[in-house]
């Protein structure tokens, strides 16, 4: 099972994400943002957290226009899987792969702590090893995680079961407590919390492990 993790200048969760995929049994290649092609035969692309391009202009805006992102967009249009975490989620919204946008946290503060995440949809390749309504503990670390969509789009996302996770206690002002959304074909997940930081006993929690195992199981049986 092949994964590519994209590295932008300013990415700082790329290696953590790679380790989480590796520990689930995947074969990981790191891809530089200036590359124009993703490796052949990929199963999934990881878009990591960090501060790509120093968060200049808007978080993720410059990364979304880097050469590798054309290839990422083509990969998702072909029905490929992708996981964007934190800055990776911001990049996925900036490319238009996922709907909405991430604004400055309502309380204006950078928040770094473990939060409770409620699983809203367990029928995706990312969440099949969780149960609907289950609350898992996953760290957040962001300044701009306040998810916004229009009321109309929100109704659509809710109707289509595209909200993967919500915050148990909304830390950042996100519309409808949304912490993670999924694409219409259920193959692209973007989320502000960091499952790769809850993937080892040493992290103080392992609730993120099931996401990576779930992906391996789903992709193996696909």
């Amino acid at each position: 099972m092949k994964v590519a993790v994209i590295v932008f200048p300013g990415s700082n969760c790329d290696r953590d994400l790679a380790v989480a995929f590796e520990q689930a049994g995947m074969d990981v290649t790191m891809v530089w943002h200036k590359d124009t092609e993703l490796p052949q035969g990929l199963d999934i692309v990881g878009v990591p957290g960090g501060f790509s391009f120093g968060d200049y202009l808007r978080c993720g805006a410059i990364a979304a226009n880097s050469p590798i992102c054309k290839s990422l967009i083509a990969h998702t249009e072909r029905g490929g899987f992708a996981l964007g975490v934190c800055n990776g989620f911001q990049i996925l919204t900036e490319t238009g792969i996922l709907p909405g946008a991430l604004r400055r946290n309502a309380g204006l503060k950078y928040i770094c702590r473990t939060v409770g995440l409620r699983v809203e949809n367990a029928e995706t390749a990312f969440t099949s090893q969780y149960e609907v309504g289950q609350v898992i503990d996953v760290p957040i670390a962001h300044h701009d995680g306040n998810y916004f969509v229009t009321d109309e789009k929100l109704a659509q996302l809710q109707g289509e079961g595209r909200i993967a996770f919500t915050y148990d206690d909304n830390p950042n002002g996100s519309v409808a407590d949304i912490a993670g959304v999924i694409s219409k074909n259920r193959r692209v997940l973007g989320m502000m919390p960091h499952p790769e930081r809850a993937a080892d006993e040493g992290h103080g929690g392992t609730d993120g492990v099931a996401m990576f195992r779930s992906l391996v199981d789903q992709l193996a049986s696909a």
Partner: protein
Amino acid sequence: MKARVYVMLKNGVLDPQGEAVRHALGSLGFDSVEGVRQGKVIELDLAEGTTEDTVTDMCEKLLANTVIESYRVELM
């Protein structure tokens, strides 16, 4: 030539920074401030003959996120 691009959060999109500035002005005694919206100004140095359409294209593709932001272009 130059262009100036004004990027603002759309009406209806909460602007927590603007709200913080409003509170700060209120606590300085400026009681007449009823609302504050904070945006960005981006100045572009452009080759002569660059059209407004080109600058608009720049706004759509990069300078503004039209999901949450509106923009206005001023050629100078």
